């Protein structure tokens, strides 16, 4: 098991380095420096500015300094657009919001998706199954950026039940639409995967044995069928997490939650490379870490996996 975890780590750490170095190089290759503007800056001032931000150093040295800043002090450097705020400030402001509804969405997608899938598989070819399958097929073509306007149209503009945007940590009414918009399509995918793998497991030999033994069906499903049926779901969680993080950009922009995604898009439009990189690296790290956790859980649950 330890060897297996170490092996996974051996992939995770280079991935992270590749991500950081690649985005640094991309940023460096961009035409125009951070202090290029219409107003001509005297060359002495420019030289001073470059020296202050370390831009006169050779590229490898800049990368090492940047990396060291992140590792040693968790410091992503200054923002190029907002002179009074660092990348850390911007992240600290938006990240808690994104993390809150992101976490809720993830839990909702997994819980609802798995229950829907299991129910559909147990009640196969009944009305319940058709409804569950129908929902999961329909939700496939409703990605977050389609769900968001539809939800606002129904619950804000027509029914006036929920606020159409904004965020408050104290009022759960602000959380509902971001969570639903973000989780629906993943819920659908999880339901589909759970249903098909549950059906496969239910027709396997060890379930037949359990039935023959006379175990109550609740016990068969919870104890014997669910665990193997969840394996494909777990391997889907990694990719789902990546695209949910990506989807949070849409939620932040559309619902003006003040989350980190909005800062990302703003910095993209303002060419504030430092903020873009900081957010990319932060979310990349989160993704890679999550993939590592999923891999370890998978190795722990699946007896067939070779360490």
């Amino acid at each position, binding site marked *: 098991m330890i060897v297996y975890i170490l092996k996974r780590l051996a992939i995770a750490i280079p991935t992270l380095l*590749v991500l950081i170095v690649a985005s640094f190089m991309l940023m460096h290759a961009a*035409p125009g420096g951070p202090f290029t503007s219409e107003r001509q800056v005297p060359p002495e001032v420019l030289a001073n500015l470059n020296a202050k931000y370390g831009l006169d150093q050779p590229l490898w040295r800049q990368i090492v300094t940047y990396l060291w800043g992140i590792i040693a002090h968790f410091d992503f450097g200054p923002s190029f657009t907002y002179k009074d705020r660092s990348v850390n400030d911007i992240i600290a402001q938006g990240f808690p919001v994104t993390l809150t509804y992101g976490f809720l969405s993830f839990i909702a997608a997994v819980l609802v998706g798995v229950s829907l899938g299991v129910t559909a598989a147990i009640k196969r070819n009944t009305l319940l199954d058709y409804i569950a399958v129908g929902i999961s097929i329909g939700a496939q073509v409703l990605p977050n950026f389609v769900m968001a306007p539809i939800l606002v149209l129904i619950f804000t503009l027509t029914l006036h039940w929920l606020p159409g945007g904004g965020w408050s940590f104290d009022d759960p009414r602000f959380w509902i639409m971001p969570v639903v918009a973000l989780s629906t399509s993943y819920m659908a995918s999880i339901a589909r995967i759970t249903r098909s793998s549950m059906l496969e497991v239910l027709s396997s030999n060890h379930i037949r044995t359990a039935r023959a033994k006379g175990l109550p069906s609740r016990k068969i499903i919870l104890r014997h069928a669910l665990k193997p049926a969840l394996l*494909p779901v777990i391997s889907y969680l990694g990719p789902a997490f990546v695209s949910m993080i*990506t989807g949070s950009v849409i939620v932040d922009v559309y619902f003006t939650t003040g989350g980190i995604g909005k800062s990302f898009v703003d910095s993209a439009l303002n060419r504030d490379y430092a903020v873009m*990189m900081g957010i*990319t690296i932060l979310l990349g790290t989160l993704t890679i870490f999550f993939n590592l956790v999923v891999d370890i859980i998978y190795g722990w649950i699946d007896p067939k996996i070779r360490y």
Partner: protein
Amino acid sequence: MVIDERKMASLAEATSREDVAGRSLWANARRRFFQNKAAIFGLCLLIFVVAFALFGNWLAAWNNSDIDYNVMGDRVASAPSFADGHYFGADDLGRDLFARTVQGTQISLLVGVIGTMIAVTVGTLYGAIAGYFGGRIDGFMMRLVDILLAIPYMFVLILLLVIYGRSIGMLFVGVGLISWLEMARIVRGQTLTLKNREYVEAARAIGVPSATIIRRHILPNLVGVVVVFATLLVPLMILTESFISFLGLGVQEPMTSLGALISEGAGTMNYGTLWQLAFPLFFFIITLFGFYFVGDGLRDALDPKER
């Protein structure tokens, strides 16, 4: 929004089975495909969407960039009507939404198809080479794919678009860069089984060079998997492009795509101009449905297993 890995593996196995005497794999598949109602429905949707994209401009009374000053800024006058030739109404700048939707559909389909073509070419070759040569080359090549897959590509793609300009060409490159990874993985898995077949061994025994074996014996047997995966990849590419365009970082005016139109429609819907959201959304959804149904139908036709 998910391509089930296990189903793809089962498909790979089914298409690489040696033919029993009688009808060929493809003849059987064709028969089964045309018996599948959902697949036929999907095919009809796709034919409709493609016809709309190709010939829609013949029906349009307006050009997609002309501004109709009679309806501009007028909520009532810009509603859909046959009298003034705005079948789908007009957008908030007075441009004909029918012509814009035709253009948006064209661009979205183009991004989907080109992204998929890159995936097919690069992914198939990469996967076939890694799988065929095996050993250390395979280990290195697939480790690279693993690393690239773990990166939240949407952020890197946006980084690329911002740095190198938001042009449609860059969008194709960016979408193509990420689309081939999954394809390479699936093709490699299939190649691993194929290369142990007798006919490959026979070819190797009489001294056929590796490149020729890959071209003559491996690639033709990959067609089934590649076709199915490509069909399911097109909607994912369309989703990616729409996502970026929804944020305003994708195709730029006067060009448009379905994602950009949905974004515009979502932005103006609280003024009661619902058609600006409804028509692009309708074409977006039926395009995705079409590809999903046809892809699922093809897979079930090539790998008939009760699910």
